[in-house]
C-alpha cells in the first residue's frame, strides 16, 4: 500500500533483546487515531498491562510524528513522546517542536517504539533503514549540549537531528525531559526518566526519503490560504517578536499570574521580566521550528553583568514566568541562567520551579528550617537558593533528593505542605492561576496527564468575548474567564481540538490559539495530504476518541472522580488582590457540566458504555470487564 502524508512504517526496537523490527503502519490506527499523540495513547493502552512499574523494562517509550510533518504545512514540526509516567504513575506524554520530527519522517517512520532495557548505556543511530545500537558510555553524565556535540562529532555529521536526556534523567529525577535541538523540551511527565531507565542516552536520526501528498494541487492551495491567514493574524507580530513570553504582562494585568507560589496573582516586578524586556534588551535574532512561518523562538545574549556571555534560545512563557514570578525573582538574568541550567541538565522547568517555590513557601511558613534545606536561605527570589536547588535536584543531592520526586511525593515524604503542593494527579500546575482563568483550571482538573494547560488550552476564554461563547456553545459566559458557566462545553471542545492538533503534530499556538485550524479546515488538510475522506464532524470524533482512550488508560490505573480536583487553596481561598480579586474555583459545578458533556459517569468519572461504543472503543469495554472495572 502506498501512503500519502504518512511515512508508512513503524519501527520497534527491543533493547533487552537488541531486536529491531519494521512493520507497515496499521490502517485502522491511521483512520481512528490520526497520528502523533493519538497513535501513542492508543498504543500504550493496547500494549501496556495495567499497574506496571514505569521504570521497569516493561514500560514502553514511544515517539510519534504526524501525517502533516515533513510537508510544507506551516508549523507541522512536532512530535509526541509517551510512556507510563514515573512522576504520576498514569499516562505520560510530552510534545516538542524543532527538527527531529521531520527527520524521523524522512527516515521513514511514523512511530518509534522503544521496549525493554539495555544492559549498558547506549544510543541509537537511525539512518533511513540502517539502525545501529551504539555504545554511550562516553556520553553518560554529559549535559544535553555536550552530548549533542559529541554525537555529531562521532558520527561526523552536523545535520543529524537528536533527542537527548541530561544528567538529571540519569540520576533518576522523576521529572526529567527529553530535548530536541538542545532547547526544545518534551519535559513534562518525566519521559526523560523513562528513557534513562532504559539506559538510552539519545536517539540520533537522519533521513533521506520523501513525503508525498495525495492531492498536491489542493494541498498547495490550502497552504496558500493558511499562510495568508497566519500572516494577517493580529497575533503574528507580537508572537514573532516575543513568542509566548508576550503574555506575561497581560496575565499579570488580568491578575492571574502565579506569584510566590500562588500566594498572589500580581507580580510587582513583571515589567522587569517581561517578554518585552527580553525582546528589547537581549534578543538578537529569530529562530523557528521546521516549516514554521511564524518563527517565535528568539536567540538571546546577555552582554553585561554577572551572567555576561550567557546565550541560548527562548525562553518561553512557562519557564520564564516560573523562574521569575513563581519563585519571587525579579531579575531577568537570574531567570535566564536558571532556564539555561534546567535545559542543560535536562529538567522540566515547570515542575522544578514548583518544587523550589513550594519549598520557599514552606520555609516562609516556618515548616522548613535552614538545617532542613542544607543551610540554604529559601527567602523568595534568593538567587543562590534557586540556582543551588536546581543543581541539587539534578544530582539528587541533600534536600534536592527529596524534591527530585516531584512536589506531591516530597510533601508526602516530609509530611508537610500537602495542601499547598500545587499538583493534580502528581503533575505540577503551570503558570496560570485556575481561579483567574476557569476554563484553564477545569483543563488542569481533567487533563489526561495531570495538571496541564496543553490538553485543553481554552485560549479563547481569555478574549472575554461573550459573542464567541454564544456562537460556539450557546453560552456567552463560556468565553469569559472568570465565569464558571459553560466551561464544561468549552473545555471538552478545546480538548478534542488539541487532541487533533497534537495528532497532526502541528503547533498549538498557531492551530488552536490563533484558531487557524478548526475541525473543518483540518478535515480538508487531512484529505489533501493523506487521501482519508473526512469531514469536520469525523475529525472531532477522532479527537473525542483520543480523549476517551486516554481516560480509559487513567481509569485502568485507578483514577476516578475524586482525583479530578485542584489543591485546596483554589477551592477555598479567593484571589487576594488585583483585578481578579475575590474569584474562586467552583469545582463541582464545572466538573459536572464537563462529565455531562463527555457522557462520563458523574459519580465515578468513568465513561459510559454507550459513549465508548459510539467511538468504536469496544475493546476498552472488553478490557474493563475483564479486569473487573464496573462500567455502566
Amino acid at each position, binding site marked *: 500500500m502506498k501512503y500519502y502524508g504518512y511515512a508508512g512504517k513503524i519501527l520497534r526496537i527491543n533493547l533487552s533483546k537488541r531486536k529491531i523490527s519494521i512493520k507497515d503502519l496499521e490502517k485502522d490506527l491511521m483512520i481512528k487515531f490520526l497520528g502523533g499523540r493519538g497513535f501513542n495513547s492508543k498504543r500504550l493502552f493496547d500494549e501496556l498491562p495495567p499497574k506496571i512499574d514505569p521504570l521497569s523494562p516493561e514500560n514502553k517509550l514511544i515517539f510519534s510524528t504526524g501525517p502533516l510533518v*515533513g*510537508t*510544507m504545512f*506551516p508549523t507541522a514540526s512536532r512530535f509526541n513522546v509517551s510512556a507510563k509516567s514515573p512522576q504520576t504513575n498514569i499516562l505520560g506524554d510530552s510534545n516538542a517542536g524543532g*527538527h527531529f520530527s*521531520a527527520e524521523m519522517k*524522512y527516515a521513514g517512520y511514523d512511530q518509534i517504539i522503544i521496549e525493554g532495557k539495555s544492559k549498558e548505556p547506549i544510543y541509537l543511530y537511525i539512518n533511513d533503514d540502517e539502525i545501529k545500537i551504539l555504545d554511550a558510555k562516553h556520553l553518560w553524565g554529559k549535559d544535553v*549540549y555536550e552530548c*549533542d*556535540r559529541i554525537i555529531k562529532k562521532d558520527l561526523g555529521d*552536523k*545535520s543529524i537531528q537528536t533527542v537527548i536526556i541530561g544528567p538529571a534523567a540519569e540520576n533518576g529525577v522523576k521529572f526529567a525531559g527529553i530535548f530536541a*535541538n*538542545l*532547547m526544545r523540551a518534551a519535559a513534562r511527565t518525566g519521559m526523560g526518566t523513562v528513557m534513562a531507565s532504559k539506559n538510552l542516552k539519545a536517539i540520533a536520526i537522519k533521513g*533521506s*526519503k*520523501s*513525503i*508525498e*501528498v495525495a492531492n*498536491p494541487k489542493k494541498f*498547495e492551495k490550502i497552504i496558500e490560504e493558511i*499562510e495568508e491567514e497566519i500572516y494577517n493574524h493580529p497575533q503574528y507580530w507580537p508572537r514573532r517578536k516575543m513568542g509566548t513570553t508576550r503574555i506575561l504582562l497581560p496575565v499579570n494585568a488580568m491578575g492571574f499570574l502565579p506569584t510566590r507560589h500562588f500566594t498572589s496573582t500580581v507580580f510587582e516586578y513583571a515589567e522587569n521580566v517581561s517578554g518585552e524586556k527580553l525582546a528589547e534588551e537581549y534578543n*538578537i*535574532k*529569530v*529562530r*523557528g*521550528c*521546521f*516549516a*514554521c*512561518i*511564524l*518563527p517565535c*523562538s528568539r*536567540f538571546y545574549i546577555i552582554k553585561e553583568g554577572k551572567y555576561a556571555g550567557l*546565550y541560548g*534560545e527562548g525562553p518561553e512563557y512557562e519557564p520564564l514566568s516560573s523562574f521569575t514570578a513563581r519563585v519571587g525573582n525579579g531579575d531577568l538574568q537570574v531567570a535566564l541562567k536558571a532556564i539555561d541550567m534546567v535545559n542543560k541538565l535536562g529538567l522540566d522547568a515547570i515542575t522544578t520551579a514548583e518544587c523550589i517555590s513550594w519549598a520557599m513557601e514552606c520555609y516562609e511558613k516556618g515548616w522548613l528550617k535552614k538545617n532542613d534545606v542544607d543551610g540554604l536561605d529559601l527567602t523568595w527570589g534568593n538567587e543562590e537558593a534557586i540556582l543551588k536547588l536546581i543543581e541539587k535536584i539534578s544530582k539528587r543531592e541533600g534536600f534536592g533528593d527529596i524534591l527530585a520526586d516531584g512536589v506531591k511525593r516530597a510533601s508526602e515524604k516530609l509530611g508537610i505542605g500537602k495542601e499547598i503542593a500545587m499538583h493534580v494527579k502528581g503533575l505540577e500546575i503551570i503558570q496560570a492561576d485556575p481561579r483567574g482563568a476557569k476554563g484553564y483550571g477545569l483543563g488542569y482538573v481533567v487533563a489526561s496527564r495531570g495538571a496541564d494547560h496543553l490538553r485543553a488550552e481554552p485560549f479563547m476564554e481569555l478574549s472575554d468575548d461573550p459573542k464567541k461563547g454564544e456562537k460556539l456553545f450557546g453560552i456567552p459566559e463560556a468565553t469569559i474567564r472568570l465565569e464558571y458557566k459553560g466551561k464544561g462545553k468549552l473545555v471538552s471542545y478545546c480538548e478534542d481540538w488539541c487532541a487533533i492538533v497534537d495528532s497532526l503534530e502541528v503547533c498549538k499556538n498557531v492551530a488552536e490559539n490563533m484558531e487557524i485550524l478548526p475541525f473543518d479546515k483540518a478535515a480538508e488538510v487531512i484529505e489533501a495530504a493523506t487521501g482519508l475522506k473526512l469531514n469536520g464532524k469525523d475529525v472531532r470524533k477522532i479527537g473525542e476518541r483520543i480523549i476517551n482512550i486516554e481516560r480509559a488508560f487513567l481509569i485502568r490505573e485507578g483514577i476516578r472522580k475524586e482525583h479530578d480536583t485542584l489543591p485546596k487553596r483554589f477551592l477555598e481561598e479567593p484571589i487576594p488582590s488585583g483585578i481578579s480579586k475575590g474569584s474562586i474555583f467552583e469545582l463541582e459545578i464545572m466538573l459536572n457540566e464537563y462529565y455531562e458533556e463527555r457522557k462520563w459517569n458523574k459519580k465515578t468519572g468513568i465513561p459510559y458504555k454507550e459513549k465508548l461504543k459510539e467511538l468504536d472503543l469496544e475493546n476498552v469495554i472488553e478490557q474493563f470487564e475483564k479486569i473487573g472495572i464496573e462500567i455502566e
Partner: protein
Amino acid sequence: MKKIFIDAFKCSGCRYCELVCSFFHEGKFNPKLSRIRIFKEDEYGIDNPILCSLCSYCSCINICPTNAFYKNDKGFMEINIEKCIKCYKCIESCFFGAVFLHLEKNIPIVCNLCNGDPKCVKKCPTGAIIFTEPNNFTQIKNYEYSRIVYQDFLNKHGMKIKSE
C-alpha cells in the same frame, strides 16, 4: 542582472525554502532534494542558507568534463543530465558548496532560479532570501545598517526609529 542574495542573520532556520524548492522541482517534500539548503548550529543560533550564487566565473561550468553545466539564454544555471558522468567534480569545485547531490538519482542539482521566478524568495517568512540587482541589495543592506548605526545616537536625543 538579478541574483538571489542572502541576509543570513534574518534566517530563522525554518527550512520552508527547502520544502517549497523540493515540492516545486520534484513534486514531493524532501529537503535533501532541494536546491537551497540551510546549514544550522543550534547552540550558536546559526542558520545559513546556501544556494548557487551564479558567479561569472563558474567553477562548475569550467570543470565539467562533458559540458553538462551551462547557463541558458536567460543566464540561469542548467544541467544537461544526459551528459552527466557523475564524476561530481562540480560538487567538489563549487566555492560555496552550492551544487548538491540528488539523493535518489545521484545526479548534481543546482538552483536555476525556478526559471526566473524563485519560489524560495516568495515563501521565505523573514525576508532572508532576496531576489534583486546587486546594487539594489547593497542599498537595502546599507539602509538597514545605517539605522543600526544611528539608533543609539537618536535614542540619546529622545527619538525612536519606527520599525518597518
